[in-house]
């Protein structure tokens, strides 16, 4: 049984996890950097430990200090949230060594799913469709060109350890290949200090659909339906919704089954996400598995009624899944918008600073996950996401209108945000 959890994160997700613990009667330890002594998570937790200077490398990525904080406060588990150390297999391994429960999958699963080549092989063996491509590192331009012919142009060249759009380039034909390959390789080396590259067929204008799964330590796996995350800027999601209205029931079932198969093949434990690319709303391919809770998890929580953070904690405590696939019912439609401290008219430049005035909407079917408050100073050192607005309604169009209305109510003064930008995009999604 878990008595006390150290939350190795900051911002709204740290608050979200602390809230779940408060409800479950579990003690909480927040960790914070010198820049976050007044952050909401620091103040809301039962205990708080400063783990270093503002820079993430010295604080939220400082494994040594986080482990020490856990041992000192007597916490028996760590929830890593998302980002930071959440998918760091070395960190998970350390927790295992120190007899700390890492709320997430075992370190070797994180490791194998984190290496895209290895993840792909696992999926092929499990009979899950993967994008036509090459799952061996490509060493030279010549070799790459040969493989590209087999895979079929356009091709996308990616870093084996890639993410966030870094180390990724598209080549439409053989002429473009060399430049694309070299740029991607260079970027990969700079970003991940590893330039093993692989390649796949590039699906133009794909739909990005991901399935939430839950797996316990006894081999039981269920999926909780899908989220459509096709609206992205620079390969970064910022509006997510569920369910995906373009999926037929048949396709949804097949994808759900594939997701469960994928999770089983990976020996997965905990909450995870299988990302698929859907081509022409009929074929789907495994893209990657995220071995953590995701930013957009509230969408699934709302359409299934399942609290994913609590589920993570229960699974980590060794509990069996209390539901089977047939118990999972999708109700209504949910949309999430990510509110960032940034200025869309100035190239999305981040906008840290003091929030002088704040008004947040509420009401039926409106949820806000945030860590800001009036007088809070948004520090310049971390991700610019300051809040998530999630709505739930019977139909998609109703949800869009609810989102539009809620966005229209938000007042955040003192810093620039993307609220108006989101308002425009949501408005354009409205039909009839």
């Amino acid at each position, binding site marked *: 049984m878990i008595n006390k959890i150290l939350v190795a994160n900051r911002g709204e997700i740290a608050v979200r996890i602390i809230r779940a613990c408060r409800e479950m009667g579990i003690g909480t330890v927040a960790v914070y950097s010198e820049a976050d002594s007044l952050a909401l998570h620091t103040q*809301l937790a039962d205990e708080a430990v400063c783990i270093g200077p503002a820079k993430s490398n010295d604080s939220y990525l400082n494994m040594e200090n986080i482990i020490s904080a856990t*041992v000192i406060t*007597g916490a028996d588990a760590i929830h890593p949230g998302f980002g930071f150390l959440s998918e760091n297999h070395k960190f998970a391994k350390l927790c295992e060594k120190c007899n700390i429960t890492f709320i997430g999958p075992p370190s070797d699963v994180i490791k194998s799913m984190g290496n895209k080549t290895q993840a792909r092989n696992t999926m092929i063996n499990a009979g899950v469709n993967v994008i036509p491509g090459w799952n061996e590192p490509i060493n030279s331009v010549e070799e790459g060109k040969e493989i590209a012919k087999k895979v079929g142009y356009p091709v996308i060249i990616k870093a084996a350890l890639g993410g966030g759009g870094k180390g990724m380039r598209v080549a439409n034909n053989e002429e473009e290949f060399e430049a694309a390959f070299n740029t991607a390789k260079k970027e990969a080396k700079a970003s991940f200090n590893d330039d093993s590259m692989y390649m796949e067929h590039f699906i133009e204008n794909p739909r990005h659909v991901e399935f939430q799964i839950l797996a316990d330590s006894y081999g039981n796996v269920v999926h909780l339906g899908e989220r459509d995350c096709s609206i992205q800027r620079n390969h970064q999601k910022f509006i997510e919704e569920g369910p995906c209205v373009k999926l037929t029931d048949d396709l949804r079932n097949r994808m759900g089954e594939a997701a469960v198969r994928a999770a089983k093949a990976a020996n997965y434990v905990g909450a995870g996400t299988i990302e698929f690319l859907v081509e022409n709303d009929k074929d789907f391919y495994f893209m990657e598995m995220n071995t953590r809770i995701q930013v957009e998890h509230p969408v699934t929580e709302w359409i299934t009624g399942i609290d994913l953070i609590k589920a993570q904690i229960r699974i980590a405590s060794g509990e069996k899944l209390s539901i089977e696939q047939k118990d999972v019912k999708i109700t209504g439609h949910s949309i999430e918008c990510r509110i960032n401290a940034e200025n869309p008219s100035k190239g999305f430049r981040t906008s840290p600073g003091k929030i002088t005035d704040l008004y947040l909407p509420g009401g039926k079917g409106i949820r806000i996950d945030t860590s800001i408050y009036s007088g809070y100073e948004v520090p310049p050192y971390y991700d610019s996401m300051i809040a998530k607005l999630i709505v739930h309604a019977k139909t998609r169009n109703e949800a869009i209108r609810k989102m539009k209305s809620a966005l229209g109510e938000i007042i955040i003064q003192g810093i620039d945000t993307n609220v108006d930008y989101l308002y425009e995009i949501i408005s354009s999604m409205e039909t009839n």
Partner: protein
Amino acid sequence: MKLDMMFKKNNLNSSNSSSTEVPEGLLKKCNKCKAAIFADEVKENLYICPKCHGYFRIPAKRRIASIVEQGTFESLDEGIKTSNPLEYKGYEDKISSLREKTGLDEAVTTGTAYIGANKVMLAICDGRFLMASMGYVVGEKITRAIEMATKERLPVIIFACSGGARMQEGIVSLMQMAKTSAALKRHSDEGNLFISVLTDPTTGGVTASFAMLGDIILAEPNALIGFAGPRVIEQTIGEKLPKGFQRSEFLLEHGFIDAIVAREEMKDTLKKILDIHRIKSNNLCEKETKFASKTKKSVPWDIVQISRRKDRPVGTDYISGLFSEFIEFHGDRYYKDDSAIVGGIALFNGTPVTVIAQCKGKNTKDNISKNFGMPSPYGYRKAIRLMKQAEKFNRPIICFVDTPGAFCGLEAEELGQGEAIARNLFEMSSLKTPILSVVTGEGGSGGALAMAVADEVWMLENSVYSILSPEGFAAILWKDKDLAKEAAKVMKMTAGELLSLKVIDGIIPEPEQFNDTNFNEVAFKMSQVIENFLCKSSKIDNIEIANRRYERFRKM
């Protein structure tokens, strides 16, 4: 707003019943940045702190693994009996308990190994063993290793890390300093290479013996290197020592080490140095080098102006443009390093050479650090040190001359500028290895000649070479430095005039506006000259080369 006290907390009486704990040895504290770090990560990372990049002392075994080809190390001379000449109480017990604890034979591990294709003799100190102090066994093992290397003509590499002589063995320890130094002298006299690598700390009797006797002395960054320990000095003189005193960087600045090499780059650097010392001159061919017998410009003053242009390529451009694998060696081993003269070893079309260049800067800041290309006495002393090193290893020497003159200042006189120049003329005249000098810009007086007592002297078309500047000439003879233009006309300082006087041997033509954009044009012709010179000299005995050099200047 402080919300902390306003929130209602869970108020759990969470007894610390948790069974979490950090296993013994998982974490350690960096003694430099004080951060908690994972012991395994430090070991995997060459004993470098992942947080502050500070260096931990590295066990001999790990050190060897980090620099040699896997599986090639063969240990030598283990199990020599400890001497206890002072019958120091408990000494033998201490040694045997250390042997058990560290798994080491003694404070130094010796043996042969390969670095790349180079077989070498290694001696690696390990600070865990009585601070790697040098007693009889350490001195004996190092000496035997050197003697064997002398016999087998192997390069010796010693990684020093030591508190100095071993107090427990008294005067016998002191004698190890003489013994190891003597063995190195024999090794050196046979023309063998010794690379000394200084690591933290290298002090006392080790600094005052084998550690400072390398043909090439490298050091790890920020290592403490000195004779007397800093605490002893402070107590003796009653003053606080400045920050950085006795650190590698301090020694580099003061001319005692050739280069500071990061641990990650140590193997590559050693391999490069060993390669350059192993490979023989490559197949060189004679080249056509009769480019010009006079200059295109006819007004000497115009040439003087061009030779001083700020956009003219400088010494470092010739080094990087004409040579590969250049490794810079710093310092005169007496006082200081002079950045107005850059020297080191490199390959020219695969042939090992020593290259030394007088260097102006590429911009004002660079020029200030290089003292506008005006060398100090320690610059000339570095140059002659590198030339003698070249002679020892039969490497031809290529010099690039470009200086307004030797630096004229207080310190330069105090340190013997005249003596330094004279010494270079004296020593260069008889070096038994080929010397080629190329005047690339200003060949200012004795300061230029100190790097031009060569077998062949070439000039770039728009360079000058003279007894002193035309301004100086006019001021001395005509009491008016404004007559410099006239002086240039009578001084015979341009390449065409000097070729007629047989002061130089050839002219390398230049494009109209010689600068970085058309550098390759000149570099190509220059490489023809160098290759032709190296090819011709390789056919002549080195003693004959020195004799011909004598005759060349005898005729002047």
